[in-house]
């Protein structure tokens, strides 16, 4: 059973790599051609964000002296902008990996994951950084059989950042630190261009070749939404999403 999954995973990975190589050459011209912008909003009252008690580890507590850290399950801005929403092209995108050159990074800072949700392209290098003066262990838990294998590595303070890549599309891989149980984040492995909403709720997807697509916006707690969008040469497409608070 398991081995079949592994096999499938490896095959997909192989396929993706091949496609990637092709698309890279073809995308060089297409790069920067079109983009998609929009905002994600939250209606209704956002849930009460519990404060996190970090008294277990003085280092963490010191990092948040004054304003204690809050749970980041749903982070809504003042004007209802919803942050940490991953927007990606779920249908209609033919190309392979894009922008695989610029590495995204997930930083362990103040015993929280920054960013809380990191989106990364298949096979795009993801840098894991530990800026704290305490040891973290970063422990992604991909769904079995989805093609990504989980691992669990400690990062003592001052140890070098390391790069990882993900083989298969998976939205989203929960990642946690066992040493600091409150630390939770998500790694959204998408195929093709993507954007992540900032705390105002606005996002941008670059490097989209002209065409019409189906966008999907994913929020860790509120689920997924889709929208259709068309991108013409020189004219960016726009798509807005609205999530309803539970």
């Amino acid at each position: 059973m398991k081995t079949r999954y592994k096999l499938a995973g490896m095959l997909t990975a192989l396929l993706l790599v091949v496609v990637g190589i092709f698309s890279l050459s073809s995308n060089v011209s297409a790069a920067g051609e079109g983009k998609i912008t929009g905002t994600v909003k939250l209606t209704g009252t956002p849930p009460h964000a519990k404060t996190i008690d970090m008294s277990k580890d003085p280092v963490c507590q010191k990092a948040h002296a004054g304003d204690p850290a809050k749970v980041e399950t749903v982070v809504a801005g003042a004007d209802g902008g919803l942050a940490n929403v991953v927007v990606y092209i779920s249908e209609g995108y033919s190309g392979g990996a894009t922008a695989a050159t610029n590495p995204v990074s997930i930083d362990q800072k103040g015993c929280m994951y920054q960013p809380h949700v990191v989106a990364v392209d298949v096979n795009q290098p993801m840098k894991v950084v530990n800026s704290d003066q305490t040891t973290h262990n970063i422990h992604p838990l991909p769904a079995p059989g989805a093609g990504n294998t989980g691992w669990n590595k400690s990062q003592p303070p001052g140890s070098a950042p390391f790069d990882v890549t993900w083989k298969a599309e998976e939205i989203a891989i929960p990642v946690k630190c066992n040493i600091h149980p409150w630390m939770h984040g998500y790694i959204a492995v998408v195929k093709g261009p993507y954007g992540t909403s900032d705390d105002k709720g606005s996002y941008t997807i670059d490097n989209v070749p002209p065409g019409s697509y189906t966008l999907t916006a994913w929020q860790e707690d509120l689920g997924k939404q889709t929208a259709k969008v068309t991108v013409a040469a020189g004219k960016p497409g726009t798509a807005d999403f609205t999530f309803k608070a539970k």
Partner: protein
Amino acid sequence: MHDMSAQAVHHHAPPTGFIRKYVFSLDHKVIGKQYYGLALLAVFIGMVLSWLMRIHLGWTNAAIPGLQWLSSSGAPGGVMTPEYYLELMTMHGTLMVFFVLTTAPFAAFGNYFLPIQVGAEDMPFPHFNMMSFWVTFVAFCVTVSSFFVGDGPPLAGWTSYAPLSAVGAVAGPGQGTGQVLWAAGIAIFCVGQLLGSLNFISTTLDMRCKGMSLWRLPLTAWAWFITSLMGLTAFAVLMPACILLILDHVAGTSFFVASNLVINDQLQPHSGGSTLLWQHLFWFFGHPEVYIAIVPGMGVVSHVLISAMRRPMLSHRVLIYSMLALAFLSYMVYGHHMFVSGMNPISSVAFSFPTLAITIPSTIIVLIWIGSLYGSRLRINSASLFALGFVSMFVSGGVSGFFLAQPSLDIMLHATYFVVGHFHLVMAVAAIFGIFAGTYYWFPKVTGRMMNETLGKVHFWFSFVGAYCIFMPFHYLGMAGNVRRYSAFVDDFMQPLIPVHKFITIAALVTGAAQFIFLYNLIYSRFKGAPAPQNPWEATSLEWTIPSPPPFDNFGGKLPVVYHDPYQYGVESSTGDYVMQDSPEKIQSVRDEA
């Protein structure tokens, strides 16, 4: 005692050809040497691991140069990660306990000298004997292979407490493949030791030469006999336990995993298992294992001391009875490892008294050693120095048992460095000193060359003082509540203790380095040492009646006949102040003063 000298014909001819002679040899002497080599390899690896651990404990965030090449993921940039520390710790314990303390004093020396000391040509089952070594070797390979498979060796410690060791990779790095390899390796190791024990028992009971009654066996032979009795029962418990552990991993059973465990936010699909069951099974093996490691040492030390003191022990038989008592009690005390484990507190009390009772046979043994020194003509050489060092170490480690045998004090001391100091002194260091004593004592017999005394004495001084510098402070750390198995000391109350750790680390590095003197001495003397006479120590037991190194069939086809108790020293005879066991000359023999 039926006469075996009549059919004094070897039941397998001397092998020709390299493989049969040195690799798959049936000769108990070669197998003994193979065991010794395996132990040397294991102890070397184990020592390097302990070095790395000590450096990390002393200077936690320091980069150890070159470590990143040993394991890029375990030590990015040479800075050891917590899981890598625990992995090293697990492998250190496993290698040392199983592949050094069990194989060297018991399997290695026993294989070589038990048949000679009972006056036999070989073990009764040479094939089993050879198989026991090679199975052990496979076990070694399997265990060590966990370094190179999956995400490294297990981090559950050499005790591999369930459910950490039973739930699989979800519990942490190394808990998947590594843990299974560990369990498989140990299960295989048990098979090897079971075969070996069978051989030892039957050798002692059936292969004794004419006149060699049980009471005329040297103390070493008795020690190996008692040890093999323990091994037969203890390893027979550990092996199934390891198999059940593997089943929990790969077959999805739930022997050791309770229900409703949520690990990494994942509800585990196990149910109905008992986590304490593993501890019971493991320690039912684990405590006899301690005596499997130390009793052969006691035998060797007594043997060496006697020929150095030029007199028999005050009482041959009381010593043997005491060792038997140790072996027997060791099965009724395993619960003292589990006082605060959640076991019924009443059983903790029940286990505490047999544990305290163990001090009685131990004290008898020590007192007889010391009492026999009285009025003796003590000869000081590397062997006897290490033997006396053994006595000192055994006492130092033993008294801390007073504390750990009491559940009320275990509340404070359990799982602290006090325990580490205790078992390292009484089990590890003492047993290793026994191995050294035996090596210096028997090397001339095995190789036909003397070891270099000067190097031996230098080696002793470094080891003796070093061992105390390393392991005495552990007790103080423990009393201050320094918890063991920590890869770094982040708790406030442990900060003042870190200098002690630094001191221990330096002591460990020096002492470890000094062991290379021994290694050099071993190799150098093997080829360049002064030629050894047949009986350099003027000893009486049978191994000194044959040439060194002994011929293939030990006694040249004519089995010896024994006329005396093993240790006839301090008597007037033609050869001096001692009489060989097989010399027919009539003497006023030294009686047991029991």
